[in-house]
Each structure stands twice: as C-alpha cells, then as structure tokens.
C-alpha cells in the first residue's frame, strides 16, 4: 500500500514542478484538447497533426519570445469527466500557460467555467457554438474563430445567390447542439432570404451512425430541391458514399457544410456546395499568396500524406493566435507574462493567419471571413477542389456585439443576400 503511495508521489512530483511566475520559463506549456480516438478522430486527428507541425515550426524559428512551446495532448474521446480532470491537472501545473480546447462544443461548454475558476486562458479552436458566450460571460475564454451563426448564414446566402428558386429543403444534421443549431440558423436565414422556403424533411441521426440508408430513402421520398447537411467525420463519409450511390446528388443540390474535410477521402461529384466554416481553405487565393502557408501545406502533406483539411488549418491558425497574444503580452509586461497578462493580451487581438485575418472582439468572439464554393474537378489533383468561390467579409455576416444572434437573423431580408459578394467573385 505505502509502496503504491510512494510511486504515486514520485510520479506526481515529476508533473508538478512549480515555476516562478515572472521569470522567463524554459518552456511554454500548452494543453491541446482534440479527439484522437473514437468516431470523431477522423476530424480531430488533422487538428492534432497540424498542432504538432505548427508548434515545431514555431519552435524552430525560436519559439515565442525565445521560449519553445511544449504541448500536452488530451484525447477528448475519454468523455466529460476525463476531459475535465485532465484540464484541472494541467491547470495545476504552473508551467502550462494556456489551453487550446476543445473540438467538441459539449466539452467547451463544460470547460469554460472551469477555465474561469482556475484563471487559466482557454482558447477554443473548433467549438463554434454561438451558445458559448450567449448566456454567460467567460473572462478567460477566447474564440479566435467564427461561430455557427456567420458560418451557416453564409451557406444560406450562397444558396440564395446561386439557386434562388430552390424552396424545398431537406436537412440531415448530427443529433447534438451543432446539428440542431445549424439547422435552426440555416432554416432561419433561408426563410429570411426567401419566404417560400419550406423544410420537407429534417433528420437528426445520432453521432456515429453507420448506415444512413433509411434516412436517404426518407429524403428521396420528400423530393427536396436542396439537401443541407453539417455531418462530419466518418458520418459524413458514410453519408456521402451511400447517398451518392443512391443518386441523391443527382436529384438535389447538396450542401455539405463540412464537405472540404472529406474531399481527399471520398469522391464527391462536381457541383456540391462546400465550405470550411471560416476561411481555412489551404488552396484559397489568400493562402496560396502566403509563402508561410505554402511551406506549412507542403510540410503537412509530406509528413501526413494528405493536404491539411480545414480542421488542420483552424488548429494552426488558433495556435498562431496564441503566439500573437503571447508576443503582445511580452511587449506589454515587464517580466514574463503570467496567465492574467495573457488574458489581457487576447482582448482586441488582431493577427494575420495562414489563410486570412482574425480579430478577437470585445465579447471574446472572433471575426473571420467565410469562404464558400462548389466542388469542381481539378487539373492538379486527383480529387475535386473548391471553385466558384466567394469570401464573405466577416463583419457583414457576423451579428454585432451584444445582439441576440437568432433575433438578428430574423431581421435579415432578401436584399441582404443580394448585397453580399457574388459566387465566383473570390479568385
């Protein structure tokens, strides 16, 4: 028994080496939360890969203020309590300066109050739910990414511009907040842009569904003009394979909100509306004009055997945001910035990312442009790429600070969609 206790003590001692807050540390500890197992890993692993690569590149270039980043990865698939207890453990380690968490909205919602309580800055990299900052203020939580509201309004706008006559829409989204919120936002915006729109089928299969065949029959029977889906990961791949074989892509205009993430894995036909929930498309004109991005993309491709899908770009951009915040904080404070100093730095942060710019507003939410397009065949690659692109400016599609997002959607008019840049305008 006491032997066990001694082992425990030794094991713990290694982890919890305290560091004086104001000295320049030997390393910047960073907790990074993503799914590295379970069905969500298909989406989470690119995030982890990108984190690994971008951190390596930052460290090779001298780290942040001369200090290298030391990441600790946490698998979100272990469930709520495991994620929370890991967060607490890492927060207890004073060498950890910041948390990059998390992929799943559920985990973000669970972690946010804990970040506030433990006063450790938490930067979300993928949980885009607009509910994060809706009811509660989170002084220590920042999102240098867009939220579900601009993301899904953009698809409605693109559709309104491209197929103005489409009125019968079918929705098949995953059965949790992300899917339900997206359905609500997309439907709300569609109806604002064209009052004749009706939802002819609305399905929420549960996460991890393997066979969508009955859902596909149900959708086919409803004869929709448009099929909208924000399925992702293995679910999206399954849906695409089954739906494509059964002719769904021929009979309706399909919108796959997270379609870019499977372009390299499953053969999508041409003409499917896809996007990247932000501006993180590695082949976008802005990305291709950026030497650093090209370097990142080729290094990623070389190491992981595929091009960085948008979750990878989101993760890389988020870590760049952390770097920018640190550099701002180092400038602002006398010694090495502590957690509270870093928090100060995030407010109003502006930076150039690999694929565009991001601004962290005073409500801690990010302003990021939205990129949408359709799949087109590519001369360069053996998989389709995004063509007929549009880049909606962030400030035009994001609800203003302090406004209820759903109420704001209700104020939109057909003119709003017409006032936005047109499909194909981003070249």
């Amino acid at each position, binding site marked *: 028994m006491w032997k066990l206790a001694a082992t425990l003590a030794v094991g713990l001692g290694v982890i919890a080496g305290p560091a004086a807050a104001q000295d320049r540390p030997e390393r910047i500890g960073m907790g990074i939360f993503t799914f*590295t*197992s*379970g*069905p969500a*890993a*298909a989406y989470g*692993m690119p995030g982890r890969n990108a984190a690994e690569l971008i951190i390596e590149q930052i460290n090779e270039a001298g780290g942040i203020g001369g200090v290298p980043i030391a990441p600790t990865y946490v698998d979100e698939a272990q469930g709520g309590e495991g994620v929370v207890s890991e967060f607490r453990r890492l927060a207890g380690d004073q060498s950890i300066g910041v948390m990059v968490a998390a992929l799943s909205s559920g985990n973000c919602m669970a972690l946010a109050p804990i970040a506030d309580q433990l006063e450790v800055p938490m930067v979300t990299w993928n949980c885009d739910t607009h509910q994060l900052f809706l009811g509660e203020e989170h002084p220590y939580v920042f999102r240098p990414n867009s939220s579900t509201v601009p993301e899904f309004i953009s698809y409605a706008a693109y559709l309104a511009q491209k197929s103005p006559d489409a009125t019968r829409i079918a929705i098949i989204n995953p*059965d949790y907040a992300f899917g339900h919120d997206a359905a609500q936002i997309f439907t709300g915006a569609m109806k604002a842009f064209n009052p004749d729109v009706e939802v002819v089928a*609305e*399905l*929420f*299969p*549960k996460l*991890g569904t*393997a*066979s969508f*065949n*009955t*859902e596909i*029959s*149900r959708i*086919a*029977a409803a004869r929709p003009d448009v099929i909208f889906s924000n399925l992702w*990961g*293995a679910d999206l*791949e*399954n849906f695409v*394979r*089954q739906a494509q*074989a*059964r*002719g769904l892509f021929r009979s309706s205009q399909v919108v796959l909100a997270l379609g870019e993430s499977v372009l390299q894995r*499953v053969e999508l036909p041409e003409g499917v509306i896809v996007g990247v929930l932000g501006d993180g498309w590695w082949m976008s004109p802005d990305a291709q004009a950026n030497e650093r991005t090209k370097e990142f993309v080729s290094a990623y491709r070389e190491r992981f055997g595929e091009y960085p899908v948008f979750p990878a770009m989101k993760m890389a951009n988020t870590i760049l945001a952390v770097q920018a915040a640190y550099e701002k904080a180092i400038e602002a404070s006398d010694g090495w910035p502590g957690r509270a100093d870093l928090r100060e730095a995030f407010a109003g942060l502006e930076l150039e990312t690999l694929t565009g710019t991001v601004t962290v507003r005073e409500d801690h939410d990010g302003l990021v442009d939205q990129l949408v397009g359709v799949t087109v065949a590519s001369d360069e690659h053996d998989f389709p790429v995004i063509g007929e692109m549009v880049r909606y400016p962030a400030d035009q599609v994001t609800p203003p600070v302090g406004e209820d997002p759903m109420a704001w959607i209700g104020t939109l008019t057909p003119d709003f969609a017409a006032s936005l840049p047109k499909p194909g305008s981003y070249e």
Partner: protein
Amino acid sequence: MDIIIPLLVDGLAAASLIFFIAVGLTLVFSVLRVLNVAHGSFYSIGAYVAVSIGGWAASAGLSPWLSFPILLISAALVAALLGPFIEATFIRYTYGKPEALQILVTFALFLIFEDLQKLVFGVQAHYQDAAMQVLGVSEIGGIIYLNYQLLLIALAVVVVVSLRLLMRHTRLGKLILAVVADPEVSVTLGINARQVYSIAFTIGVFLAALGGALATPTSGVAPGLGAEAIVLGFAVAAIGGLGQIEGAALAAVIVGLSRVIAIYYAPAFEPVMPYLVMLVVLLVRPYGLFGTAQARRI
C-alpha cells in the same frame, strides 16, 4: 399508400443488418449459456479485417467481384483465429458460473479488444465499398436502392435457413442439440462436449465477423462500432428470446421496421426504438417472444 413499399424495403434492409449482429450472439447463448459481450468486438474485428483484405485486393488490381468471397474469407479467418482460442483460454472457465461473472469476463475481453483494435487499425475510419459499387442500384417504388442492400436481405434469409438445416439435419447439429438438452448426459453418451462448445462458439464468432464484414461495403468501419453493435445485438436477442435464432430474425424485422417507421414519421424517436421494443416485449414476455421459462426442480 405508395410509401408502403419503401417502408418495407427499408425495414427489411435495416432488419438484415441488425439480424447479422444478433444471430451469432443468440446462437452462442443457446449452446454455451454465456452472454458474450465480446461479440461486439468480433463484429468490428470482422469489419476491420474485411476492409483491410478488400483494400489490399483493390490496390492489387483484383476484380471487384472478388470482394464477395473476400467478405466471407475474412469472417472465416477471424473465426478460425479467435474462436477456438478465446473459447479455450477464457470462456471455458465461465461455464456454469454465475451470469454476472460471465458477463464481466466477456466485458473485460471487450475492453481489451477495443484497445487492441485501436493499436492495430488506428483511429481513422476505413472504407472498402467495391462490393456495393459493382452491384449497382435498382429503383423500387420510385426510390433508388442499392442492390447490395437487397442482397443482404437475401443473405439473412439464407443464414436463417442454413442454421435451421444445420441444427436439425446434420450430425453436428444433433450433437449440439444433445449438449444443449443435457450436457452431463451427453458426456456420458460419449459426446465430446468441450469440442461441441468450441465449435459452437467459433460459429458464433464467424457469424459476428460476417455481420461486421457485410456491413463494411456501405458503412465502413470506425472505432466505437463494437460498442454500438453489442448493445443492439443484446436488444434483438432479448426480444426474440435468448438462444432463439428464428426469434432473433423476427426481432430484427420488428426492430428494423420500427426504426424505419420512426425515421419516416417521427425521426426523433428513431434511436430509442430498439430499446423501447425491448422494454415492452420483456415486460409482457419476460423471456422474449420465443423464449420459455425453465422451472427449477425441487
């Protein structure tokens, strides 16, 4: 009215997938009286192996028609490698022990297999859909179906019939039935009960792996498949009556239809249907549709 045909086709297609999950579980229970939680692992291992071999065949440029024998061979391979081994090393020691213990031993095996699969096959989803592609589609009642879905329905019927033939009309079947009826007496009659158990368990593993393999052309395989499969398998086996193969088939049809009807008319209730059906059936018939109580002699 025109919705009836798609409902039936979808219902039967869903039922065939569900049936393949449950049939091996119920067969193993009927002979060994062990509720095998690790059955879900065999299901997903079958899927992984089928995808791996199928992927190799595709990259070697073999004809896509070979996918069908590959699905069968994969299941047979998993059964041959794991069936006798797992039976002899773990399951054998739980015969006649309390059910709680049997469930725990197989649950432990399930946990171990979960991680072993992660270590061997990684966490990414794997796909091999040659078998689905090569068969093409048919239009029934105005809706396009995969011919592969229809093939699965036929295969499920084939499995029910062949298991019945195996049990009633072959020597092996008679040996199995004798052991089921009275293990002690059958041993005194010179039947090698151990061997019968091993064979029955291996057939169960084969059916599980086959179910997993047959699901891959449309659905691929990703971590978490086993956990989903086993709990659905339990539900179907319990509804049909544990150990009742025809019962499992009927239960699969009921569960499949109920899910399909839910998707058509009340999509929110779809995931709850298998368990709701299970709950109602067990409350009305505690031993399942085809199950019977065994009275204790005093």
